[in-house]
């Protein structure tokens, strides 16, 4: 029995490798260095939902059917986010980081993997309240076109606003969150002026080139889906994208600690995932 299960695992792993290779060669999206445990889950889930017999059948389908590829793309990108997610850390950004950003004549911020944009608007609101937004340029990028379109629209479900508001208040918000949106029966629509310093762009962290001279890079809950090698590559990308002394802000469970790039960054606080690039 053990042998059969080991065999079937080996075959499935091979099929997954071929599937990822096929997706990369055919469509240019590279998932080959994603966390395998995560990939297995998502791909098996798609296989079952689409009633396919095995990963080999899925490879065939994805090569011949672009709409199926787009379905898979959605399965493989996790877009869980909210406004002012981890409000205590937003408070730290507001009280400790913004004052340092203010020393620059002009501030460039990159939200790498911005998903549906909630955190981009959170940042714009924070910068506005701290009187810095006018001097900022925010680049918000994601490889998922559907998510990016939502981000650009800035329209969110009304039932989320209670959570967003609670987060905003805990994050040190100075006004009322409702100052920044209009609401109808189903949704909240963020005010257009919040977008004036934001450029939304299609960009794939894994395959596309670096940005330059950023004062702050925000990349939260993106790297957890990557394997160690890819994480290191992306940390290198962030290093090259930041100005000396620039800030890197990771998700609350992400860390540079186990990466060789660790030596080029200093944590700003003991455990709060904000790092400063070496000079």
């Amino acid at each position, binding site marked *: *029995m*053990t042998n059969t*299960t*080991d065999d079937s*695992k080996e075959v499935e792993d091979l099929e997954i490798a071929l599937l990822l290779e096929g997706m990369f060669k055919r469509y240019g999206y590279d998932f080959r260095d994603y*966390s*395998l*445990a*995560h990939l*297995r*889950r*998502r791909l098996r889930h798609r296989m079952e939902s689409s009633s396919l017999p095995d990963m080999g059948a899925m490879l065939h389908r994805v090569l011949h059917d672009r709409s199926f590829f787009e379905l898979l793309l959605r399965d493989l990108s*996790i877009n*869980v986010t909210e406004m002012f997610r981890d409000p205590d850390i937003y408070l730290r950004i507001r009280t400790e980081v913004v004052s340092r950003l203010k020393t620059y004549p002009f501030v460039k911020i990159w939200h790498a993997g911005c998903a549906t944009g909630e955190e981009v608007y959170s940042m714009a609101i924070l910068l506005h309240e701290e009187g810095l937004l006018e001097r900022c340029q925010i680049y918000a990028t994601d490889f998922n076109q559907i998510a990016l379109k939502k981000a650009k629209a800035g329209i969110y479900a009304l039932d989320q606003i209670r959570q967003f508001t609670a987060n905003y208040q805990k994050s040190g918000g100075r006004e009322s969150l409702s100052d920044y949106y209009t609401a109808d029966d189903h949704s909240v629509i963020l005010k257009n002026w919040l977008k004036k310093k934001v450029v939304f762009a299609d960009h794939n962290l894994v395959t596309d080139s670096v940005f330059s001279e950023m004062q702050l890079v925000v990349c939260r*809950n993106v790297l*957890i*889906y990557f*394997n*160690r090698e890819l*994480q290191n590559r992306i940390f290198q990308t962030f290093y090259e994208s930041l100005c000396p002394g620039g800030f890197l802000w990771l998700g609350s*469970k*992400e*860390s540079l600690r*186990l990466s060789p790039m660790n030596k080029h960054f200093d944590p700003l606080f003991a455990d709060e995932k904000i790092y400063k690039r070496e000079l």
Partner: protein
Amino acid sequence: MTRPSKRVPYEAVVIGVSAGGLHALRAILPRLPKNFPVPVVVVQHRGADSDGFFAEYLDQRCLVQVKEAEEKEEAAPGTVYLAPANYHLLLEDDRTFSLTLESRVRFARPSIDVLFESAADVYGANLIGIILTGANDDGSRGLATIKKRGGLAVVQDPVGAEVDTMPKAALQAAKVDFVLPLAAIGQFLANLYEE
């Protein structure tokens, strides 16, 4: 017998628990010796913004180290890892941890099924899965997967469980090897590896 611990093939223990978990884990984990030879990984359902208190509380009462699992950290022997609140916890083939924010699986994040199924991929027949008290059926699919891969399934005796829904669901879903009262599970694990 020489070095009987080598005889035990099980390389890891995964535990799933929901309502009544703190009490249940307190009854089990303090019985593990400091040099418990394999990692123990626990999914305890809890609130999305619950902090590190849970791990700290248990750590102070156990001989083994109890901590929250960190992303990319390697699962080491003599250590109990708790899934952090609001993230799924998975094991990779190289025995490191991954976290994901994939949506809730049957209302749960962390989900017991997610941990158990990924651990079954990694450890195959060399895995022990344990389901304890809880008010839902999370974990029963995962336990069935562990059995399918040839691993060992243990379930807390529903009689005497603080909430019996989860143990009952697990017993229905999988061919369970041992049904034990809470008080016996810690000793069972300790004895398994005793020299």
